[in-house]
């Protein structure tokens, strides 16, 4: 495995890999999001209690899950950057953090929209809502800390340590609905027993989950590509890549 992973400490090799993967991720994202959203929002049966307003689950749950998933990925990248001192892992932090923060914001926003008709309020200081809000603050903290240093490597190290410390919040978010009796409902699919949701509603949800996972990955890869180019701007390979890109776009306009 090490021999396979080793070349990707070199930014150029990583850039090639990302470049190769990106179209696949983007294409699959488009397909699965389209299928998941259309199936979930238009064709899945309405809920017997909540009517059509439950359909926001197809955006809310995937966004919430991958707001945590992105954070975990960011913390893993931070650990890799700290332990093996790999530059390319450091650059993943600024690539992931804004995407994860956006997912968190989407989860909070759709949750508020869902909460208004169901609970009669936009916001309650419920354990899960609060811990998800803390997650947003943690993302903001990581981004602010990364940006505060003039030297990008020092900033990346500081942000990595903070990201790892913040991981304690993830189990709190996940188990908040079990540890506290709160307004937010319990888990429906992220548990070991049979999912407590009808199969006709489950399938579109799973496809939406896949779509959001791929969407997160695609956005992160796009940002990561830019990070690689930005940090290696003075290297010949990056110059060649940029020259190639500008030539291609010039040909397209012609």
């Amino acid at each position, binding site marked *: 495995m090490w021999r396979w992973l080793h070349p990707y400490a070199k930014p150029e090799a990583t850039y090639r890999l990302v470049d190769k993967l990106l179209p696949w991720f983007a294409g699959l994202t488009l397909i699965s999001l389209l299928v998941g959203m259309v199936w979930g929002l238009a064709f899945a049966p309405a809920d017997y209690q909540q009517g059509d307003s439950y359909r926001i689950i197809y955006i809310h749950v995937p966004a919430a899950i991958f707001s945590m998933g992105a954070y975990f990925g960011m913390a893993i990248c931070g650990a890799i950057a*700290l332990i093996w001192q790999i530059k390319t892992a450091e650059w993943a932090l600024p690539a992931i953090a804004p995407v994860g923060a956006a997912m968190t914001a989407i989860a909070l926003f759709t949750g508020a929209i869902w909460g208004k008709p169901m609970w009669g309020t936009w916001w309650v200081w419920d354990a899960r809502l*609060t811990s998800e809000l*803390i997650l947003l*603050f*943690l993302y*903001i*903290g990581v981004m*602010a*800390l990364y940006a*505060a*240093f003039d030297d990008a490597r*020092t900033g990346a*190290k*500081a942000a990595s*340590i*903070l990201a*790892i*410390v*913040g991981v304690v*919040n993830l189990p*709190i978010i996940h188990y908040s609905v079990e540890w506290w009796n709160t307004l937010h409902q319990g888990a429906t699919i992220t548990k070991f027993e049979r999912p407590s949701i009808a199969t006709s509603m489950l399938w579109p949800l799973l496809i939406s989950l896949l779509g959001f996972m791929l969407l997160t990955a695609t956005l992160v890869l796009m940002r990561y590509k830019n990070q690689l180019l930005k940090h290696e701007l003075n290297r010949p390979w990056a110059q060649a890549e940029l020259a190639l890109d500008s030539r291609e776009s010039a040909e397209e306009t012609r």
Partner: protein
Amino acid sequence: MTAMQLWRSVLSKDLRLAARRRSDAINPLIFLLMVITLFPLGVGPGPDILARIAPGIIWVAALLATLLGVDRIFKDDYADGSLEQLCLLPQPLAFTVSAKMVSHWLLSGLPLVILSPLLALLLSLPTSAYGALSLSLLLGTPALSALAAIGASLTLPLQRGSALISLILLPLFIPLLIFATSAVESAGMGMAVHGQLAILAAISVLTVTLAPLAVAAGVRMSVN
């Protein structure tokens, strides 16, 4: 010098420095008292309202007072180069920096615990909650000091890091605030508080044991 001797000398140096420059340690406490004075003026002096919001006020003021003292933990040692020397020593850095956490706690956490009955009196907290308030501060403030040390070590090289420290520390403080205030509120209503206090103690044990590792990594990052 063994690691233990080094630990003790770092701690005693910090305490001696604080004794020579008392205002550094006392100012955050006066700030805390003033914040607490502002609330009765702001929300009205009715004892029933004050008693209801007292746990939250005291704990929020404690968090803010902790933030005021954060700069003190490493800034001077960083400026005069002694932090760099500590990094170069063969004694484990994580253990040495835990002395810094302890000195921060002795200078900001412990006075809070001692002051807490006075604060409770000022905010007319029910007498039954006094014990829970002091205990929640005693169990919670070590975690505050440990987290504060993480924040301090991460922002050392920055000239104007204090706003950033608040930004990264306050989210980490939130769980403590939730359990501590819930303990004091339950005590005020005459209910059992063991559960919340046990969780506070668990958070503190976890933070105090693991934070030195993060602090050591942060100090190494800042120094090189």
